[in-house]
């Protein structure tokens, strides 16, 4: 079943020097799957997530969630749809308000959407719910009075995940959720995400530049370059038999954690001196200002 449908989505920035950040993207995400959106910095993948979360207005095209066109919704209806699509952002150091305690961070979605979560009676129920969420992501509920800076990157990312799950969403947009983490921590966060997906029937849109990570988590893969999708397919197809030359180039560039294989590829590679920056050396910065 289709959960999210992007149709001819386009976003242009700037009036005089127009840049096309997202160039007529059409893509569907099915309920219960993990769709990975891969691409290099400045390819427009971050802008695309902002468009589908309706944090940016598209220049053209539509976003349909569960069959409903987000642009046609009233403010109140949009708020209701937003309960069902949540987001976890890349940098666990900037994705949390440093002045808020863990409890308030995780409870914020509840308090925002559920009037019953406020007030004296709601407080006890909210506290219970927060404790359950923290436990679900492998954290001790006793940390609820602490501040974000007291935690490691992996722990913060778990808090972010707990918060994203608070409203029992159907779609979670994971924007580079592990790229700021150490590998061993990354492995555990990925395991947690997989377990939660299975238990809660979640749909993931997994945005990443790391193809090796995508290989581990994705059911389907969409490859993005300069604002447009160059290839969409099952993970097995995209990794096993890439059709687009850019996909192949990306795959070839991934370093292999095996010294024998790594050296073999180097000997067949073109000389080190030949610059072959795929998008050209002077590609414009990502208009959303995100630097990766």
């Amino acid at each position, binding site marked *: 079943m289709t959960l999210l449908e992007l149709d001819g989505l386009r976003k242009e920035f700037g009036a005089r020097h127009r840049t096309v950040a997202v160039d007529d993207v059409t893509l569907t995400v099915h309920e219960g799957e993990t769709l990975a959106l891969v691409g290099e*910095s400045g390819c427009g993948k971050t802008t695309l997530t902002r468009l589908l979360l309706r944090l940016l207005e598209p220049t053209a095209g539509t976003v349909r969630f569960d069959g409903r066109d987000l642009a046609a919704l009233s403010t109140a209806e949009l708020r209701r749809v937003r309960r069902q699509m949540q987001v976890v952002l890349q940098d666990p150091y900037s994705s949390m308000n440093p002045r808020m305690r863990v409890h308030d961070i995780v409870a914020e979605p509840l308090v925002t959407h559920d009037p019953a979560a406020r007030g004296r009676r709601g407080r006890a129920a909210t506290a219970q719910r927060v404790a359950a969420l923290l436990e679900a992501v492998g954290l001790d509920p006793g940390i609820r009075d602490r501040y974000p800076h007291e935690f490691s990157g992996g722990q913060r990312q778990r808090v972010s995940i707990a918060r994203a799950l608070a409203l029992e969403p159907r779609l979670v947009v994971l924007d580079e959720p592990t790229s700021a983490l150490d590998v061993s921590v990354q492995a555990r966060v990925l395991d947690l995400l997989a377990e939660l997906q299975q238990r809660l029937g979640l749909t993931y849109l997994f945005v990443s*530049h790391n193809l090796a990570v995508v*290989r581990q988590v994705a059911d389907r893969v969409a490859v993005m370059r300069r604002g447009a999708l160059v290839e969409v397919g099952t993970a097995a197809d995209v990794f096993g038999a890439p059709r687009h030359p850019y996909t192949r180039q990306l795959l070839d560039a991934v370093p292999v*954690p095996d*010294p024998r294989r790594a050296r073999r590829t180097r000997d067949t590679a073109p000389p080190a*001196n030949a610059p072959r920056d795929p998008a050209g*050396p002077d590609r414009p910065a990502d208009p959303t200002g995100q*630097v990766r």
Partner: protein
Amino acid sequence: MTTPAPLLEIDDLRVDFRLDDTTVHAVRGVSLEVRPGETLAVVGESGSGKTATALSVLRLNPEPPCAYPAGAIRFDGRDLLTVPDRELGRIRGADISMVFQDPMTSLDPLQRVGAQVAEVLRHHHGLPRSAARHSALEAMDEVGIPDPERRYRQYPHELSGGLRQRVMIAAALVGRPRVLIADEPTTALDVTVQRQILDLLVGLRQRHDMAVVLITHDLAVVAETADRVVVMNAGEIVETADVHDLFARPAHDYTRRLLAATPRLEPA
């Protein structure tokens, strides 16, 4: 093949960070050596002490809070931890140079790229402007910067991330150092660009017979570039091995866990 003598030798290095009420022992007795023409990878996760170790070589850790209670770093018969600042200043950038992770913050945004590459020559070798310019252009060409004449006059923000990192490498190479320390040189870069920079580092090391110390968290990068590997955890070395041995027969449990956690393209 006879093994050449070590060029840089770190012996039982200890690095402390003395804060108001605690002392953090960031490096607890690290010993390693690197030979000409060899790439030594120092691999570890955040907090392993790998960066503190690398910065110690040129005494670039902020002092205070940093202190070196024990150990020696031998280069050319001198202990870099005790040489006077003046002498260390002559070694920095000339005999031993560094490349850092983020080329955006390590380049001065208000200075032209060329001037920053040529700085070492003007500063250390006292070369006149034209000679320094000539060598800088050569270095920029060697690291694969297209149209170096034009790039020389540009500012860092006009360059892509990959080009900026090439500029950093050119600036590190222009003084013809014998040791190059690269701290996560490709972590901020896209995969395709990372590939080019790694290839470039390997090529340069071979051509100039440099010793390269590569600091990284990524075992895949290690596999691509290193000859020998030092694995660090919590300020200590857990394993030192030839790169092929390390991947084929990891001796330490921590190394095995790190290897298992490293994502790879082929399903295991």
